Every structure is written in C-alpha cells, then in structure tokens.
C-alpha cells in the first residue's frame, strides 16, 4: 500500500472549484422511474477524474440506482449519463470501461480466486502470459497471493472483500464503482479497509465512486460527498463542508449528531445573524453571511461537541449562553453525551471528551449547567 504521506496532495486536489476542469462522469437531468416510483428525480451531478466520490443516503434514496446507471445495469428514463465525454445511453454493461465491486462481492463460487480475478481479463482476450502477470500483481496488491488456488467459500469475509476488489481492479477500469463495499465487514476491519481503499485510489490514480449509507465511511474515504434523499441530491461538498456547513436540516441531521433549535431571524449585520429562539435558546448570535430576510423562520444547528458545558454561570456575560438541567448522560468511553433539558422542555446534546476517569466526573444528573458556544460554532439553516 502507498505511504500515508498524502495529506498535502489531497488538500490541493479540488477540480470542483476549477470551472475549467473537464467533467469525467456527468449526470444531466437524470430521472429514473420504476413504475410509479421515482428512484432518481431530475438529478444533475458532475464527478471529476481521479476523484473519490461518495453517494450517501438512507436506503431507497436512489444512490444505488445512480451507480447502476454508470455500470449499465439501469438505463435512465430521462436525461443522460456521460463518461469521459461519451454518452453511455445504449452501451451495454460489458462494453463500459467501468467495473463494479458488488455489495455481496458476487464472486464466482465455481472458480478459484485466481480464475475470478482473471475472468475480466480473459473477456478482453489478453494474452495468457499477460493475464498471469496481472493476476499476480492484483493478488500482491490485496495480499492474497497464498490463496490463489482457493475457492471463494474457503475464504473469510475480509478476504472475499479483497478478492472482489482485486477482480474489479484487474481490468484497470476508468471508474471503479463500489456498492457498499465494506458493509459485510466488522467494525474494526471496516475502518482499516477504509484507509486501504483511500491509499489504493491514490496509488492507482483511478476515479472511485462509492455508494454507502454509513456517513463515517463516506467522510473517511471521499474527496466529496453527495447526500441524497428521495432521488434528489441535497448537498454536494467535501466531508468537512458537509459537516461544518450543512445547507439544510436534512443534511445536518443525516451527518453526525446535531442540535436544532427553531427560531426567527431578527437582524443581520456585518456578516452576523441574530436569531430569536424564544424560550429555548434566547437570542443566538451567529457569524454567517446569508441571504435570508429578517423575520424569516430559521433553525440554528450546532454540533454537540462544539458546546461547552459548565457548572457555573460564565463570569462575563457571554453571547450564546443558555442554561438547563442535566437530564441524561450517555457514556461512550471516549466521550460522554450530556442531554440537557432547557426551560421549554427541549433537549440539547453536548459532547464532552472524557479526559479524566469516570469516577472523577464533575457534572451529574439533575445538575444545573450552562451551555456556551462561540459565534462561529453553529450555522443558521433556512430549510
């Protein structure tokens, strides 16, 4: 696997900010209907070469359908799918320069690991010596050389996953499609494999399109994430943007944990917004440039880990300070989640890192606590 020194490379890789960058995979107003059910709803999306792109959403949101349209297993009802400038309409799956890693791995049970990996190469009528060399290379890549002669049912889940990966990479596709590739692995193996996938993608310089319902997975591996719901894309952005600057309550709620407080915009000035959240949060001040007009309904969204919790009222009157009672404490080992009940009955969550051991914990049930956060910790959402 490649060395981990990829940070700077990845940070400078942002073709989506470059208007001149040529699109690699392009969905143009794509709609897909199955009978009355609209799986993909007038969707447009551009993915760039060498990008690791994640389609994220709950089951039934259309993400798999979208991927299957690239593979050729589904044709769009309306709209076009383009790959490297070529319209894919009518191109059967076996003629597309894409390969897919299936959720169930779909390894051929009657063939050895070797034969599985060689399968695609044989279809391309590659000379035998070259096939052998490539299979060898792929086996080395996924560290399965000793298992070459085994049959799939003789491998563990993690090994099968790597065979499936090797098989889909063997033909050096222009795009590798990964359909919930790590769904069947246990948590620890999944986390390891996520990093391996990223390294692999860097090393091979291919475009990866991954479908997943696991937001952590999408955040870990992807350059950009598209959050989908009901066949539409809710937001496309880098993992950090999606997390820090969600554009809607749906996205904010889907990615990680979030506190949402309903309110009304009362003022805007100098890149700041004031939100009247009534009894729940009082007046909240947020550093954010936005379009919304005064008087609009809005929601204040803040991540639990951005809220500080203290037993005493802040000495100096601070912006964004509300008080409540500790209702419940969720101990997760590394962090504890404090559920604080506000005067109006709503609950705010605050995550506190457990730097000290549990016995020394200061805040406990029914304590009166003060929640504070800086102006730039949360965002105001209008939809």
């Amino acid at each position, binding site marked *: 696997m490649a060395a981990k020194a990829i940070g700077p490379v990845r940070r400078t890789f942002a073709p989506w900010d470059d208007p001149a960058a040529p699109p690699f995979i392009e969905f143009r107003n794509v709609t897909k209907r199955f009978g009355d059910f609209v799986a993909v709803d007038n969707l447009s999306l551009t993915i760039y070469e060498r990008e690791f792109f994640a389609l994220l959403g709950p089951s039934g949101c259309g993400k798999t359908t979208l991927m299957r349209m690239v593979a050729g297993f589904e044709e769009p009802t309306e709209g076009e799918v383009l790959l490297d400038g070529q319209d894919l309409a009518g191109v*059967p799956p076996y003629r597309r320069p894409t390969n897919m890693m*299936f959720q169930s791995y779909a390894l051929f049970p009657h063939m050895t690991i070797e034969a599985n990996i060689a399968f695609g190469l044989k279809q391309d009528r590659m000379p035998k010596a070259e096939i052998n060399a490539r299979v060898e290379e792929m086996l080395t890549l996924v560290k399965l050389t000793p298992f070459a002669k085994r049959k799939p*049912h003789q491998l563990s889940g993690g090994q099968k996953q790597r065979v499936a990966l090797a098989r889909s990479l063997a033909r050096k596709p222009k795009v590798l499609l990964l359909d919930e590739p790590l769904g069947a692995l246990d948590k620890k193996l999944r986390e390891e494999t996520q990093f391996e996938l990223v390294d692999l993608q860097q090393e091979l310089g291919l475009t990866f399109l991954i479908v997943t319902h696991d937001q952590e997975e999408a955040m870990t591996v992807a350059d950009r994430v598209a959050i989908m719901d009901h066949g539409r894309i809710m937001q496309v952005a880098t993992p950090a943007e999606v997390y820090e600057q969600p554009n809607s309550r749906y996205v904010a709620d889907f990615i990680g944990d979030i506190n949402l407080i309903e309110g009304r915009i009362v003022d805007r000035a100098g890149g700041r917004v004031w939100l009247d959240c009534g009894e729940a949060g009082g007046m909240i001040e947020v550093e954010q440039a936005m379009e919304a007009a005064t008087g609009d309904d809005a929601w204040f969204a803040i991540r639990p880990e951005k809220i500080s919790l203290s037993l005493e009222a802040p000495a100096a009157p601070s912006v964004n300070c509300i008080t409540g009672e500790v209702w419940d404490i969720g101990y997760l080992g590394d962090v504890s989640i404090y559920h604080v009940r506000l005067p109006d009955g709503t609950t705010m969550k605050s995550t506190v890192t457990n730097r000290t051991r549990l016995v020394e914990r200061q805040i406990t049930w029914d304590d009166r606590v003060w929640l504070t956060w800086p102006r730039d910790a949360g965002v105001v959402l209008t939809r």
Partner: protein
Amino acid sequence: MTTVDSPGRHDTANRPNPARWLVVAIPYVWLFLLFLIPFLIVLKISFSLTAIAQPPYTPVLDLGGGISGVIEAFKEFTVENYLWLTEDALYAKAYLSSIEIAVVSTALVLLVGYPIAYGMARAPKAIQPMLLMLIILPFWTSFLIRVYSWIGILKKEGLLNQFLLWLGVISKPLTILNTDTAVYIGIVYSYLPFMILPLYAALERLDPTLLEAAADLGCRPSRAFWRVTFPLSLPGVIAGCFLVFIPVTGEFVIPDLLGGSNTLMIGRTLWNEFFSNRDWPLASAVAVVLLLILVVPIVIFQNRAERGEGAINKVPM
C-alpha cells in the same frame, strides 16, 4: 481420566436414547426390508434353475431344514443363467440398445428441459409457484393413461398426422407409432418433470448478481451463460440426468405401448422372461445385471463428489 466433565454428564451422553435410535434406524429398517431382502431374494433366484413347479425354480430355500438344508441348497446354486446371458446375443443387444435409448433420451430431455427450467427460474417470483404446479400437474393423471393417450396422437389417423396433413406439411400420414421415434417422444414427455425440477432448483438459487458481475467484467450474455450459469447449474443437470437415465434404462411401459416389435429394451425382455417364458431365474439374472450396470455410474458420481469437486454445490455467500 483428566476430563473436566462431571461424571454425570458423561453418563447422559452415553446412555442410549431410544427415540434418537429409532429416528436413525427407520431408514435403515426401511431399506433392509424393502430393498435389501427383495434384492437378496432376486439374487438367490438368479442362481437357481427353472422348474415346472410352484415356485417355478429350484432349489427352494427351506429354512425348516436348518443349516444343513441351507448348505444343501447352496450346493445346487448355478451361474448357468448368467452364462446364458452371454451366450444369447439378444440380451447384450437389449442392454446396449436400452442404454443407447436412455442416453439419447436423457440428452433430449436435458435439451428440452433446460430452457424450460431456465425460463421458470427467470420468471417473476409471483408466478413461479404456478409454473411449478403446471410441471407437476401431469402426475395427477395415471402414467399409463398418459402414455396410452400418445397412441391416439401418434397413430396413422392420429391427431398429429391429421394436423400435419391439414397444414399441408405432409401429403400422406407419417408412421410414427411403433417406431423408436414414438418411444423417444413418450420418454421425453414422461420424464421431463424429473429433469426440470432439479434444474429449476439449481437455477432458481443462482444469484443473479453473478451474471451482473460477469457482464460488468466484459462478458456478453451468451458467454456468461456458458461460463457462469451452466457450470453453476451442473448439480441440477447431474441430478436430473440420473433421475431420467436410471428409470429409462429399465423402462417397460413406454417401449411396450409406443415402440415397435424391433424396439429392443431390457425392461421388455425382463417382462417376457418373467411372464411369457416363466423363466424366473433367467429374469432375475437379467435384473441383477441391469442393477450392476446402473450402479456403476452412480458410484463414479459419488466418488467424484467425495473428491471435493462437489464444491460447486455450495451456495455462494
């Protein structure tokens, strides 16, 4: 004894459990009473000689005579019937022709049955039970009647000839009944369900994602059939072929009703020896040899499966 098990537990494990013993014993008792004993009787008769008596062979095993009586009987045993099978070319011809008819008709049944089973397995899930039902439906009518009805279809003035004449495909009626063709038609028709059912079972559990994977890897559908679908359906193909080949080899009713005088099959020969010639010992010898001929391919298959090539039977994931 270094076991950590308590002695009490050990006792329970070793105590014979009557109910469990019974469950294991039932199939063995069944096979012993209804297969092994009848087979031994037939085997014994095959070593006997014909006699104009009741029963029509000698020696008759008289268990009342004690051990000495049994030994006496054994001394009279003869392999003459088996020698006779080799002397008269009729039997060898009948065996060979039976096997030939069985091989050809098994191939035909496979050829006709595979597309049907494939179509059933690919049909919408909702109608599959109904299709399965349609395959089994003919069993509701007597086998004999169904074969008889083919006489009405295949005879000179039969439905098939009338239909072909009406179509203008032929100008005078074809002779189909009482030929090998009629036998093949009868066999393919009668044994089709035995081929379709195991094939359907194998094809139905085939993961359609595997075909998507094949297509994704650049394999066109026709090639994917031979490289993925067919190899994975082999257990069904083998099971279906056995279920057809074995009974067809000994088939008696179909060649008797639809075949001509020159349709030679061992089942018919057997019948003639038993009931026309009343030569029970020779008929028994014919039956024993037939059994041996059929056992050979089964043993070969079993060995193959045990060598681990049966791994394709394992359901993927």
